[in-house]
């Protein structure tokens, strides 16, 4: 084994790979099970975008809070939410992260710094400002982080949050996960200012664009932004350009995409393959080590699905609880 050339220890590289693989297999499995009609409701999959969530979240701890969006499974897993509880939640079971009351679009675990996936696009940005404000006022060095797609970056809430964070100098980072499509609508058409760095500059914030399929590019850039925010350097914007392997939601025929686009991207822009190539070429991790993780992850997802299927359903009593702390 040669010297590790990467800015992460071997153990951390293994953790990062395991997280990315867990997200991938979680989503691939949901895709299949949704197709079989086993999952209720709306499901938006993160597959293809793993390097962004994991490259960023490797820098965060439980005190750092993230506000996610409808495509939140990857953020949840990378932020440490329990995978089995997530699966049970998506199946609507009482053992789920949210006791079956939230579902795919509302998974949260504040104790892990996951303020919630969110069905209202752009709504997370003000909440992340609140997390940054709390860190600032309570005097700990946590940060708030808002995850927005290219679509929701057109929401007033997002733009207002950029301004608020700038004037209050909040430790908040706005991540724009630009996968090129707002549901079915192209970012090239729907975003009038064509660069998110320009858009950030319009609010007086520094912005950075990175290749979101390159784990190490995301990791390094996010590390600098996060360090800056923790040290009082204020808010910034990180655009990760990435690829959405699936449609907007499950059941989307994706006819708006180019012919062969998904196949090409899976072949050439798969962040997991790219990561594997880097670490094995450098001789830091072996294919055997990574394959072993693959096997463990598949077993975890299988177990999560099995447990979710056999878990108890909520009862009528659950309908009216958890509305208020007291009423």
């Amino acid at each position, binding site marked *: 084994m040669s010297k590790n050339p990467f800015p992460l220890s071997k153990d951390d590289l293994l953790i990062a790979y395991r997280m990315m693989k867990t997200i991938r297999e979680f989503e691939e499995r949901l895709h299949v099970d949704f197709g079989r009609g086993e999952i209720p409701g709306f499901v938006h999959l993160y597959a293809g975008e793993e390097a962004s969530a994991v490259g960023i979240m490797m820098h965060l701890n439980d005190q750092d809070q993230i506000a996610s969006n409808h495509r939140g499974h990857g953020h949840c897993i990378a932020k440490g939410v329990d995978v089995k509880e997530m699966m049970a939640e998506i199946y609507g079971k009482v053992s789920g992260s949210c006791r079956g009351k939230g579902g795919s679009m509302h998974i949260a675990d504040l104790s892990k710094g996951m303020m919630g996936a969110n069905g209202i696009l752009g709504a997370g940005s003000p*909440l*992340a400002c609140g997390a940054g404000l709390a860190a600032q006022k309570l005097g700990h060095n946590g940060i708030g982080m808002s995850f927005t797609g290219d679509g929701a970056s057109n929401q007033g809430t997002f733009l207002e949050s950029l301004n608020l964070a700038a004037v209050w100098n909040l430790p908040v980072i706005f991540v724009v996960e630009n996968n090129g499509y707002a549901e079915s609508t192209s970012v090239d058409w729907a975003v009038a200012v064509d660069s998110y760095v320009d858009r950030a500059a319009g609010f007086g914030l520094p912005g950075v664009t990175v290749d979101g399929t390159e784990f190490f590019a995301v990791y390094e850039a996010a590390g600098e932004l996060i360090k800056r925010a923790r040290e009082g350097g204020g808010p910034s914007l990180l655009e990760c350009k990435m690829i959405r392997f699936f449609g907007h939601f499950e059941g989307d025929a994706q006819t708006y995409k180019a012919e062969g686009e998904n196949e090409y991207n899976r072949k050439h822009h798969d962040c997991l393959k790219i990561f594997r190539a880097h670490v094995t070429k450098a001789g830091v991790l072996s294919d055997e080590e990574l394959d072993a993780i693959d096997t463990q992850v598949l077993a975890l997802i299988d177990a999560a699905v099995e447990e979710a299927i056999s878990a108890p359903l909520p009862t009528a009593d659950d309908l009216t609880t958890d509305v208020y702390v007291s009423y």
Partner: protein
Amino acid sequence: MARTLSFKDAVNEAIDQEMTRDPTVIMMGEDIVGGTGSPGEADAWGGVLGVTKGLYAKHGDRLMDTPLSESAYIGAAIGAATCGLRPIAELMFLDFLGVCFDQMYNQAAKFRYMFGGKAETPVTIRAMVGGGFRAAAQHSQMLTPIITHVPGLKVVCPSNAYDAKGLLIQSIRDNDPVIFCEHKNLYAHEVDVPEESYAIPFGEANIAREGTDATIVAYGLMVHRATEAAENLAKDGIDCEVIDLRTLSPIDMDTVYESVESTGRLICVDEANPRCSIASDVTASVTQEIFSSLKAAPQLVTAPHTPVPFSPVLEDLYIPSAEQVADAVRKTMAT
């Protein structure tokens, strides 16, 4: 020790006492300090009507002016509430609900339920409500029904300085999101208010006037119109009970039922528009639960189904008057 205090000063005192007691209480809003970044005084306004004047001098940066950006800062207050602070956010006029309602009803109100009971959002959103300031259609509404409709939100609308102080202190201490509605036409109204800190529990209506012939249910400014009507009717020998709901969510229907069971007559007064109002809600509950106690059809006295007009003559017609309340009482007494 009690002394006379205005509604406005009672609100100020409640915030002051809670900020002193609990370092996690912060406050934000447009111009609540007033003048941040401007060339003049740093603490120029203390709120658009001066309600928070003087608090900045005592508590400094725990009071924050915001950009004119309700979505962002109401959302930030809500986010901060889930992260260990106990923020008070001022939405200057509840009429501005439209530009930040998502953060209130889709975010704050639903966190606890959506997250399976794992979130607490102790945020208080203070907002001015109601007419009489000649402020026209977008600064005068009584939008309490809209927010009361939403599970997960608590709604408070006091009628006097004593209640304002105790209920605001309770709102700040409460672990659920509370919308605290302040009737701008009551700011100058004075009653005895103790100096010491006290909290009034939610869901406990106040009997503002005891009576035996009819029950008038009201909240906010309408409590005063109802009481005025009751005093006038007393001269004619009609003895009305006036119930001040104080909090609309939770709502104290037991006190209303108890009163209606003894009087047999119900008049609901609401400054809101009539459809799906607090008045119609209370009436529906009474009708469903204690129908047999009713001696006459319940009466609703509300604003008309129109926006709030500007011209003083029209606005005076818009807001329910003591005469209208008295007429409604007489109508129930006739049967």
